[in-house]
Structures are given as structure tokens and as C-alpha cells.
């Protein structure tokens, strides 16, 4: 019963290992090293790495930039709320505001083209959950996160808020078209 009693041998740390334990420790350690290498290697060879480019921002500063972007590239409006649909040129800086309880504006992107997507929140934490691709990014107020995105499939994507943000959290859904 020695797990609930003091070890019988005083010098328990000199006790030899069983081969089962020794072998398993080596296997487990190698597997951990492989997983470590995968994470680092994906930064070199993989194509899906989350950007860390971040700036401090305020709702006023970010809104001004997003408004200028919307004024410049809006092609039409959708829904009863007249949400602008914005079609920016490939390679440009694009903006999406998360606030209670909407994503604004709607974006229209081209397949296989790259954009610099700027994200922030005007109020609480929100979640950028791109569906059906299932890419999920945290949106934190006060921080402007610049994510470089390259859509690889055409279609209509939804942006579901997946960080709890209050009573109408479930109505907070945005949209991105990829042509």
C-alpha cells in the first residue's frame, strides 16, 4: 500500500526503473518533440499561421479608418439595415468592426487574392468565427489585429460571434463573399 504510506526504501530515488516505464517515457518524449517541431515547422512550411501584427487603437480612430474604407469601395447595400457591401482591390487593407451586436461592413473578396484584414471591437470581447471554414480568432477591444487572409474557395461565408457579448449575442452574424 505504499502510495498512501511513506516509501519503504529511504533512498527511493535510487530505485531502478522498470523497462515498461523507461520505454514509455522515451516514446512519449519523442512524441512531444515531434509535436513541438510541427508547430515551429508550420510557421516555415505551412500556410495557416495567425498573424501577431497588433496596434493599440480606440473606437474613434478605428471607426474613422473603417468609414473611409467603406466610403471608397462600397458597391451596394444589403439587408433592412442597409449594411454596405464593400469590394476592395486585392492586396489592400480591409476593415471589419465588431460591436454589439453586428459585424460591419459586409466584405466581398476575390478568391486566391490576399488582403490585410483589420479587426477590432468597439465594446466587449467578441469572436470572429468564419463559417463554414471554421477559422476562429479572438477580438479584443482596444487592440487592432491585422490578419493577412487569402480565401481559397469561392462562396458565401458567415462570421459568427463566438465570444459571449450579451443578451443579443446570438444575432451577431456578419458576412464575407468570396468570388
Amino acid at each position: 500500500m505504499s502510495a498512501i504510506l511513506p516509501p519503504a526504501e529511504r533512498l527511493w530515488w535510487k530505485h531502478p526503473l522498470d523497462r515498461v516505464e523507461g520505454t514509455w517515457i522515451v516514446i512519449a518524449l519523442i512524441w512531444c518533440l515531434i509535436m513541438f517541431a510541427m508547430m515551429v515547422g508550420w510557421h516555415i512550411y505551412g500556410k495557416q499561421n495567425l498573424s501577431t501584427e497588433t496596434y493599440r487603437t480606440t473606437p474613434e480612430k478605428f471607426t474613422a479608418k473603417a468609414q473611409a474604407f467603406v466610403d471608397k469601395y462600397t458597391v451596394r447595400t444589403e439587408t433592412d439595415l442597409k449594411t454596405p457591401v464593400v469590394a476592395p482591390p486585392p492586396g489592400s487593407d480591409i476593415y471589419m468592426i465588431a460591436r454589439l451586436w453586428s459585424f460591419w461592413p459586409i466584405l466581398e473578396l476575390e478568391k486566391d487574392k490576399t488582403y490585410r484584414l483589420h479587426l477590432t471591437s468597439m465594446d466587449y470581447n467578441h469572436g470572429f468565427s468564419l463559417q463554414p471554414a471554421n477559422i476562429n480568432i479572438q477580438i479584443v477591444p482596444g487592440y487592432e489585429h491585422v490578419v493577412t487572409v487569402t480565401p481559397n474557395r469561392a462562396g458565401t461565408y458567415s462570421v459568427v460571434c463566438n465570444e459571449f457579448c450579451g443578451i443579443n449575442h446570438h444575432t451577431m452574424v456578419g458576412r464575407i463573399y468570396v468570388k
Partner: protein
Amino acid sequence: MSGTTTYRTCPRSGLQFEAHAEKLMIANAVAGVVFLLLGGILAVGIVLTRWPAIHWLEADTFYQVLTAHGIDMLIFWIIFFEIAVLYFCASTLLRCRLATPRWAWAAFALMLIGAIMNNVAVYQGSSSVMMTSYVPMMAAPSFYLGLILFAVGALIGCFVFLGTLVIAKRDKTYTGSVPLVTFGAITACIIAVFTITSGAIILIPTFLMSVGLVKEVDPLVYRMIWWAFGHSSQQINVAAHISIWYAVAAIAFGAKPMSERVSRGAFLLYILFLQLASAHHLLADPGLSTNWKVINTSYFMYFAVLASMIHGLTIPGAMEVAQRQKGFNKGLFEWLRKAPWGNPVFSGVFISIIGFGFLGGISGVMMGTEQLNMIIHNTIYVPGHFHATVVVGTTLSFMALTYFLIPVLFRREMINPGLARWQPYLFGFSMYFFCLVMMGAGTLGVSRRHWDMAFSGAALAYEWPGAAYLMMGLVGVAGIAAIVGGGIYIYVTVGSLLWGKRLDTGVKSNTFTPIPPTAPSAAVQGYGSIGFAAPGTFVLAMVFLTAFVLYYFINWKYLSTLWGLS
């Protein structure tokens, strides 16, 4: 001092209980079970709302219930029970008196007041901020104050535990090193001190912000320090329930650890690295460098993963060795077939070990991988993972331990042992299924903490695939089955305390009886020389590793098909 107390030797287990420690263990364990009952009732509301065909509660009630369920289960139930486990591992296993019982009672009172205050704040309705309470979303001041009081109480409890170790050492109640289970409890206590301090560091300014004395708490800083509390508190659980696994292996089989060195080394890895794993909650966040993310979550976290993989082998391995010595030597698995499957103390722990490893462990590493986190973050996969670790791992282990404690600590005969025999199977397997379908729904993208997957009232609704609806329906079914399993546990435990036949308390004495030193025998000298002592466990471990590797690369494969992100 030591004359003011008595020591009772339990006639059923041979364990020695000191009077103050015994009362405190009972009080803390009972308070824990009360919060488990409360959390379980709240769970009914959650599963019946997330079951799309039923969608029972209104949005505001749902978020309120979800907040209370998270805090009651993850913090109050588990930490109350853990304090009882700490006192058990110090005072009972080391056969000494508890240090400063008055402080221990003060700790208990603070924890109870804090827990009640926090619950009242949530039910008043202005504190539906979820367990994480991310700023700048604010709850009522009493919400934070309740948590702070609870944390201070728990911290005092930790120091009572540490003081008790000092007393045991000074009074020479044992010789040599502390038992492995106590060593695991020390690990849990050290992690708890770190955790609770982090909680205080972030909740105190947030409390001051809620009463208007502090203007702003930075949302990102909050997230980082909160998670040093929020995730590390789950590491207390891991250290505590792994200690219980070792204890149950010793109690049910008379098993000794395969090697003290390996098991204690693995606990040491927890102390050094486990808290750093908290960083994986911030993998999808802005403002943190890739190096910071990779170093904290892989380089360091994998030492903790390694430690868990070691415990995952050595505990069943110790059981196998003990069973083989009893003659269950046929083939690879006779030791397992002939295990006491009808004893809920054992079956609960074994179901817990397997579920914690296969479901909780593997999914945890997926979420903790920087890039893979992007396909999981904040989906319902996350609660799928932590119900496998915290419910299957911790709660089920605590339930199994309770079945041992009913006659030993509470001195009652268990009512309805037939029901208790089935309880770990019903609860454990329905939780397995619950976690699996939650992870399935999360893989399809379904959000956690979300009232309506149909997005009623949204201008731009998204239509989840039919499979996601099916999965969420199954979450409902499995959740209800698990709640029934939890209800049986409460019925058996509380029923035994109220109506169970009183059992003989055993001999009381005014002085402690020191633990007699164990003579090193040839058998004790060691498994090291036996060679390959636990082949069956090794095969199970390889099955585990295969599942782990396959699932890991399936996730990478899926990730590689997504939008380019850089």
C-alpha cells in the same frame, strides 16, 4: 496543544482520523456536494436549452444559469472537495493533528460566505458575465467580492495543509519521505497558491473597477492573468485527482507505485510547467508574439503533457503489477478482466483514467497547438474537452473516492449499494458520449456559450449543417443521462449520510500512533529487476498513442485546406 484532540482509528481501513481534521473534512466535502447538486440542477437548464428541438430557457435566463453552473462546478464544488482531500492527505495519511483548526474553520466560513455571495449576485441577474467575466463587461461588485472571499478562504486552507505537514515532520509521525499521494497533494497545493494569487491579482482591480475606484483594467492583460487563475485552477484538479488515482490503486489493489522516482518526477514536472499551459487560452488573441505562444504552449506545456502520459501509464501499470502478483497472470489482460468492476471505487477511477486520457488529454493537446487552436477556439469543442477533463477526470474520481469515504470517514453504511455499483458506468459513459458529440459539433464550428444556433432575429443568419443539429440534439440526450447519473451519486451519498446505518467508530486515543516504518522486502526492492512488469498496460498505452498520433495529423490535414492566413 495536542492534548486537546483525539485520534480515531477506523476499524474498516486502519486509517487514523484526528477529531478536528475529521470534522473539517466532512464540512468541506458536504459543502462541495451541495454545490455539485446546485450545479447539476443548473445543468438541466443548459442542456435542455442547447438541445435545439427543445430550446427551453429564454436567452437572459440561459446566460445566467450558464454563469452559475460554470462557477458552482468548476470553482465551488471542486475546491471545497479539494480542501477536504488536502486535509485527508496531510492529517489522515500522515497520522498527525491538523494545524490551527480555528483558521481552518475561518477558511471554511470565508469560502462558504464567498460562494453564497457570488451565487446571489448571479441570481439577482446583473452578473451574467460567464465564469470568465472578461472586462470591460461588468458584473455586480458582490460577484467579484464573493470570488475574492472564496479565494482568500481557499488560500488559508492551503496554508493549514502546509502547516499540518510541518507538524507531522516535527512530531515524527512518519519516517523517511511523505507518501506519494501526499506528495501529489503538495503539488496540488503549490499550484493552488499560484492560482489563487493570480485570481486575486486580477479580481481585486476588477472589483475596484466595478465600484468605480479604478478606471480601467486592460482587456488583454485581464485575459492573461485571469487564465493564470482559470486554467491553473484546473491543474489543481489534475494534481488532486491523479493523487486520488494513486490512492485508489493502493486501496483497491494494495498496489505500490511502479517507481517512486518516476511518479514523483512527473508531479515535479507539473509544478514546473503545468501553469504555463494556461497560455493556450490566448493562442487566438492579438498582441502576443508567436515566440511567446509557441514557447509557453509547446516547449513547456509538453513537459506537463509528458507528465500526464507518465501517470497514465504508471497508475494502471501499478494495478497490473499488483494483480499479477496475486496470480492473474494469464495473457495480456487477465489482470484487467479480473479487476473489481463491481466496486464503484475502482470502476469510477478506471473509467476516469481512460476518459481523461483518451478524450480530455488528446483534445487538450489539439487546442494547445498554436495553429490547430484556430479551428477550435471558442467552439463547443472547448467545453467538450473540459467536461472530459474536469467531469470525467476530476468529478468522477471524487465520486469514486466518496464511495470509499462513506464508511471510513462518515461512518455510515452505504444505502443502496446496487445503485452505487452502476453509477460510475452510467455517469462515466454518458459523459464520454456527451464530450464526444460536443467535440463533434465543435469540429463543425458550433459556438460555445451561445443561446440559439438558429440565430433567430439576426439580419444575416447562418445555417448550420444538419449534422451540427444532430450532434447538439445528442448533446442534450447524453447530458440528461449524465445528470441522472450525477443525481444517483447525490442520492446515494446524501442518503447514506442521513439514513445509512451508523458504523462502529473504532478506538479513540488521546495520542497519535505513528506510522510504523515499512521494512524493505525483496518484493519491495523491486519491479526494476523484473523486466517488463506491465505488458498489458504498455499495449493500452500504445493504443492511446496511436489514437493520439492519428487524430493529431487529421487535424493538421484539415487545417491545410483552409484559407491562407499569415
